[in-house]
């Protein structure tokens, strides 16, 4: 039988609409695939369908997944959908849903790691979760002139939605924003209000931001503290690099002078 590829947009909406349409085909799931983003290598003996993101279908799928798979598995799927691995994430998520709803593993689907798609979803979600965890640790806020806190990050996966709740709770009385320069996304939190996402405004240049008077003093104080706290006799740069990889260090001011 001919293989069918559904091609969807790189977003949760795109992927969920794709899952809806894959079920709507009613052709079984063995020969249907979900592909995120543009297909680069067209296959012979395969047909391609382009899926337009649709909010009604997305809501239906999201509701079904929450009810049938449970809230925690739903979050795993959301994290996998935020992954930077475009080639594999569509199919992995789709076939994980199939394993749960159609093949019957239900709420325990994430335990069925013998299924390669479930394993892939698990790995993608873990990668996003790990990166989100690193970013909650290594983000550095800087105070702008107006007293607003601003942080810039460069993650591989789109982690802002997963780190905003942490900071919205912790810094509830602060105005702050987190800027993901790789995905062109801002997470914005006005003091004592709900946080939200906005895409990067055109012509935004972070170098033009003006810092508050005391900002430089605290940066220097912490940089010096960081340098002092290391024990010379135990120096171990390899371990430091392993625990805090260079791609995070690039965004941390205490590693600026090396």
């Amino acid at each position: 039988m001919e293989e069918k590829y559904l091609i969807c947009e790189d977003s949760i909406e795109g992927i969920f609409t794709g899952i809806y349409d894959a079920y709507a085909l009613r052709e079984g799931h063995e020969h249907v695939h979900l592909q995120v983003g543009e297909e680069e290598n067209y296959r012979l003996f395969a047909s391609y369908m382009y899926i337009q993101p649709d909010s009604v279908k997305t809501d239906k799928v999201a509701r079904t997944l929450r009810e049938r798979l449970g809230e925690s598995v739903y979050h795993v799927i959301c994290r996998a959908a935020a992954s930077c691995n475009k080639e594999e994430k569509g199919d992995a998520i789709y076939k994980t849903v199939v394993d749960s709803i159609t093949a019957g593993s239900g709420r325990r689907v994430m335990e069925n790691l013998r299924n390669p798609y479930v394993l892939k979803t698990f790995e993608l979600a873990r990668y996003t979760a790990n990166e989100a965890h690193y970013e909650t640790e290594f983000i550095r806020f800087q105070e702008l002139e107006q007293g607003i806190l601003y942080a810039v990050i460069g993650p591989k996966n789109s982690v802002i939605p997963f780190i905003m709740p942490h900071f919205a709770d912790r810094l509830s009385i602060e105005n702050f924003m987190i800027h993901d320069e790789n995905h062109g996304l801002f997470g914005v939190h006005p003091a004592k209000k709900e946080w939200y996402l906005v895409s990067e405004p055109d012509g935004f240049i972070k170098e033009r931001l003006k810092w508050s008077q005391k900002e430089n003093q605290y940066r220097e104080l912490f940089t010096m503290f960081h340098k002092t706290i290391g024990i010379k006799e135990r120096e171990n740069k390899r371990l430091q690099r392993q625990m805090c990889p260079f791609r995070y260090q690039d965004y941390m001011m205490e590693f600026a002078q090396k």
Partner: protein
Amino acid sequence: MEVRISPQMSLMDKLKILAEGAKYDVSCSSSGSSRANDGNGIGNTVAAGLCHSFASDGRCVSLLKILFTNECIYDCKYCINRKSNDVPRASFTPDEVCELTMEFYRRNYIEGLFLSSGILYSPNYTMELICETVHKLRTVHRFQGYIHVKAIPGADPLLIQKAGYLADRMSVNLEMATAEGLREMAPNKHRKNILKPMRQIQNGIAENKNELTLYKHAPRFCEAGQSTQMVIGALPESDYQIMSVAENLYDKFSLKRVYYSAFVNVNEDKDLPALTGGPPLLREHRLYQADWLLRFYHFKVDELLTADRPNFNMAIDPKADWAVRHLEVFPVEINRADYQLLLRIPGVGVKSARRIVAARRFGNLTFEDLKKIGVVLKRALYFITCNGKMMYPTKIDEAYIVRNLTYQNQMGRGERLPFLMDGTTYRQMSLFDEGQMSEAQTYRLA
């Protein structure tokens, strides 16, 4: 209250001196406490703790770890701030500590404050200063992040109780594993004075638990428990002594963590060993490995070490060492063994053991599945079967397995140590390689 300060000194100079004095304290964890923000101040705590940076020695920087003052009336031989040392002295004011904590915390540099101190005038005077600082931080600045404070041995129990209601974690350092060792190293400190606040904090936590079951909003006392630390390698204590003390502290004093600190000879005191090869990092590493076995793998110290075998094997880790001496238990069938037994297999950790138990409900696991689950097969393969078969034909023989495990080490493909195998650690290992001992002796020797 009168506080001795040095007005001419800048905040930068003070921070440098007082961070310098605090850096030998190992604990920097911010775990064990989980508290949401109440909307009136800044901060929350996360159960697993967060590391915000890593220092040049690879240790995590989670808390603003500082001394309140490095002035001290005591003269402990191993301590850089002892009375007889001529080092620059400085003291913070409570406001300075609050300012640094709040401004660092907002910028996500730190997870909270770790406040320790030298003994200024008297234990009570010092403990009062610590309490005042933390009280200010909690009430005036409404700081809701993590706070770890030292209980100063000899301070009034009321002051320690007050600090306990303000802090997430408290600690009293045991310093030396044995009472005689402590007497020798720290003539002004007494074991009994150290254990007293430790017991008080333990009881405080237990009582607080009862209160909390009755009244949900009762004030919390040391929510994240207490910890302590021991210096390793300053005195000739055996690993068996050290681990037995640690086990006692976990069982009898309900400690959350015991830290081991490889001795760094900062004072070059004539009574202390000169460590030409640097601090005993490999030994410290083995102690931490054993500590994990006690806390997460249901091991007892007596299973790992005995009076006639009092030190850990430096060539292989304690868990593998236990396994090769108990080959009668192995090989273990992955698809049948219970969770406790899975935990005893080298190469299987807590996470993979849990995943194995969950995944085998769906069908028999193969070696390929185990690899994906995260089992380290190159270590586990000597000890397991999948569906009745071993991965390769291997001998279940002590010498054979040890040779294979340590051979991988020498090739740099085996156990991953958190530091490079040079200096003392490598020399210790190469001693074994020169054929001075038979293989069987090699891994029994520690």
